[in-house]
């Protein structure tokens, strides 16, 4: 077998987490390899190791490329060898032209003066290769996502590329553009290029890939040559055992507290593409409701939009609390109505990192620690110490700056902030992301106790075992729509994955044409 790349025993540790654990992977020359796995399984980390984002020496294991051991210290090193990675988030400068973007950092110049004619000539050639009919002088910002993706590929081709890595290249493309991209990959394969395709879309993997590697919890768990049954892949992706990682509870579910009707949110940055489409659901007293879905499914957008329209552009929809319509158009209004949103991004959206625990906790309810606008410092201190003890925030004192706390303790401070606001409904977005198992258990216990105290809780999570372990009912979201719902008692990871993947295929079967999408965009 002629292997272009062999990764042997790759182990990468972050403080407290083993992101990759003895990963082995061999890629044959000229194949398209699919790399699949759940969010957080380690796919991106593995590709960062391969491309030198994580420098040689920061991980264990060997990378053999064309049979020779490699020690990449930066992306530049790996690109010199012909390994080019295209990230999920496009790295193009919208204000610059196609040609300028393609040769950014790699300009065709003599004595620092750019040769515009040669740049444009070479760009035209590259654009022909990827089948994009645009002038090299066109500004990138005026083009759609599909065309921008092709420019990224043209940029990769401008370098000497033998191994092309694409990280979810079609996640933001419509069906037409995705197809074009996949056909392009097949053509490159005929020309002898090797590719690694990271994707969640099993249908497109089955279209173009020669073999599949499945990652789970930082380890390679399966390898399939040729196509296999979809359900087998799903089992590989999610199949981990469920131990006593969740506190036991007896749900006591009451009457409906909140009803959301036809909630629709658009993306102001992308010509009104819809982030959330007509989402409707209800939430009951004492209930823990999970929302499952892949990254980018629109879960955070839905939650933040309901919470004072904090994300995206509100289009339509209504919320009723206890049967009465309620105004949630600003964050203060949402807080007054009894809502709390605990963000998935505690560092940039949850905490004032330079401030102490004591000063962070009352931020969402300053009147609660003050009289006529003057802070009662004793009350503030008492509140902080009370929460510190009640939910076990580990720190020398409440005077500790939150920047110095561990992820789990930071999460508890954010939780404390919202508990002090006295909400009736808590929306927890990825409440255990990036925190260790012990702290997770504590967070689950807090959630359980809140539900037992009659609060209603929505948990958004990308970890399906977590949803299965702590919720009463699960909503499934995909591509901005609520595509399924099941009682947790009847749910399994496989069933949830099936709903997600089927919903994606339903959209495919509809055969949405670019014209239809444009019409939709024009309509909204």
């Amino acid at each position, binding site marked *: 077998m002629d292997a272009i790349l062999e990764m042997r025993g790759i182990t990468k540790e972050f403080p407290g987490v083993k992101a990759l654990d003895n990963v082995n992977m061999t890629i044959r020359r000229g194949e398209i390899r699919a790399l699949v796995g759940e969010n957080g399984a380690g796919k991106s980390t593995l590709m960062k190791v391969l491309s030198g984002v994580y420098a040689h020496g920061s991980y264990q294991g060997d990378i053999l490329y064309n049979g020779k051991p490699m020690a990449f210290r930066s992306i530049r090193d790996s690109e010199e060898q012909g390994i080019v990675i295209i990230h999920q988030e496009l790295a193009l400068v919208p204000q610059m032209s196609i040609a300028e973007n393609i040769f950014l950092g790699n300009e065709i110049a003599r004595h620092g003066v750019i040769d515009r004619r040669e740049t444009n000539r070479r760009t035209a050639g590259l654009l022909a290769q990827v089948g994009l009919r645009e002038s090299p002088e066109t500004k990138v910002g005026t083009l759609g996502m599909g065309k921008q993706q092709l420019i990224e590929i043209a940029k990769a081709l401008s370098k000497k590329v033998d191994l092309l890595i694409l990280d979810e290249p079609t996640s933001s493309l419509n069906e037409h553009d995705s197809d074009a991209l996949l056909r392009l990959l097949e053509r490159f394969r005929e020309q002898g290029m090797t590719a690694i395709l990271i994707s969640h879309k099993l249908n497109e993997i089955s279209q173009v890939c020669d073999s599949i590697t499945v990652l789970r919890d930082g380890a390679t768990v399966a390898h399939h040559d040729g196509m296999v049954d979809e359900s087998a892949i799903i089992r590989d992706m999610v199949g981990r055992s469920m131990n006593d990682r969740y506190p036991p509870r007896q749900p006591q579910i009451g009457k409906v507290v909140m009803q959301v009707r036809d909630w629709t949110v658009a993306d102001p940055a992308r010509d009104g593409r819809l982030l959330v489409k007509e989402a409707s659901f209800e939430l009951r007293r004492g209930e823990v409701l999970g929302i499952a879905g892949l990254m980018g499914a629109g879960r955070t957008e839905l939650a933040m939009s309901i919470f004072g329209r904090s994300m995206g552009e509100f289009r339509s929809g209504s919320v009723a609390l206890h049967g009465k319509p309620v105004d949630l158009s600003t964050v203060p209004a949402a807080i007054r109505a009894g809502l709390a*949103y605990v963000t998935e991004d505690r560092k*940039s*959206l949850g905490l004032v990192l330079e*401030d102490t625990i004591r000063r962070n906790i*009352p931020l*969402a309810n300053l009147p609660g620690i003050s009289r006529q*606008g003057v802070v009662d410092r004793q009350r503030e201190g008492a509140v902080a110490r009370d929460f510190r003890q009640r939910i076990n925030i580990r720190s020398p004192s409440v005077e500790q*700056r939150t920047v110095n706390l561990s992820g789990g303790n930071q999460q508890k401070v954010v939780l404390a902030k919202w508990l002090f606001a006295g909400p009736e409904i808590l929306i927890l977005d990825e409440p255990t992301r990036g925190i260790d198992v012990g702290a997770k258990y504590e967070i689950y216990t807090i959630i359980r106790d809140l539900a037992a105290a009659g609060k209603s809780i929505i948990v958004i999570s990308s970890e399906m075992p977590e949803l299965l372990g702590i919720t009463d009912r699960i909503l499934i979201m995909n591509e901005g729509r609520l595509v399924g719902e099941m009682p947790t008692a009847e749910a399994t990871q496989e069933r949830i994955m099936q709903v997600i993947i089927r919903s994606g295929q339903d959209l495919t079967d509809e055969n949405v044409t670019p014209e239809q999408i444009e019409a939709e965009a024009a309509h909204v």
Partner: protein
Amino acid sequence: MSDTTTERSGDTFGFIRRNIREYGILFALIIIMAFFQVVTGGILFRPVNLTNLFLQNSHIVIMAVGMLLIIVAGHIDLSVGSVAAFVGALAALMVVRLGLPIPVVVVLSLAAGAVIGGIQGYWIAYWKIPSFIVTLAGMLIFRGLTMWILQGQNIGPFPRGFQMIASGFIPDIFGPDKPHTLSLLLGWGAAALILWLQIRARRREEAVGIADEPFAFFAAKNTLIFLALVWISWVLANFRGLPNVFIVMAVLVALYAFISERTTLGRRIYAIGGNAKAAKLSGINSERVVFLTFMNMGMLAALAGIVVSARLNSATPKAGVGFELDVIAAVFIGGASMAGGVGTVIGAVVGAFIMGVMNNGMSILGIGIDYQQVIKGLVLMAAVIFDVSNKSKT
């Protein structure tokens, strides 16, 4: 809990490291004062010079307390010098040309400052136009308007009552002999009040176990502040008593320190500067808070404008040129961070006095304006380098 003891006694080393900036700045002021006291052969602390020190720096201190809030909120105001000049000219027009009574003039001038600050704040807060740009425009606009209303000439002199705002002293109700009894009573009374408040706060903190500062530090700091106040009032009382602007300044510093540390409004300003997105998601009405901060700054710039024109006894087109830079430098020397969320009113005031003492001391020594600028620039740079290196270590 088992770790209550660590909480109570605090860990001295960690405390120093966390608060090195606050003590460092106070320490720097003491060193600088001691240095100039020695090299000027004792002129620095002569009653007449000390009085002048306060008179000459009052406008910087007045604006620094407002600028501190602006910078803590993550913004900047470059227009304060021009606004001060503009309002000074407006006040001069009202007093000299229209002959309006002085209290009316003061109220109208402050209102004009608040309106100007409010207009700038409106574009910054609600339209999200960077404050650097809005206030840069304001700087140009109000400088131009100052020249326009003054028609390139000075307006003055002022009636005595108006001059008194800046160069008068509080009356002595106990008779004309020295020392000035009312000044002494006010100064010592304030010193005692501050000491009592500090001890009371400390007691309460200890009672609930959140006293973070080691006792030795607490005692040393407060003894120092107490003695400094007692001594300053003694020196000033033996000259002409406390200047009117000294009272204004002291009240403003106390008021703004209280607002920034003890009120929910202060909390909101710090939260917005520390993490604007988190503040917004916590239900804080950032727009309104930023708007109010700029309105307040406009009012304080107006007050500074009145003080400056009253002191110079005329409104001139060139008044207040470069004030914004002195004020901003004072705030940064005082430990505020360009990124927002960090800084104290007391720090900004100490920063203003560091600049003031250096100006004064170097002038006494006859050091040229050229060197003075260089040295002030170096001090600012040193203070910020200290901040950055200190931050990267922790």
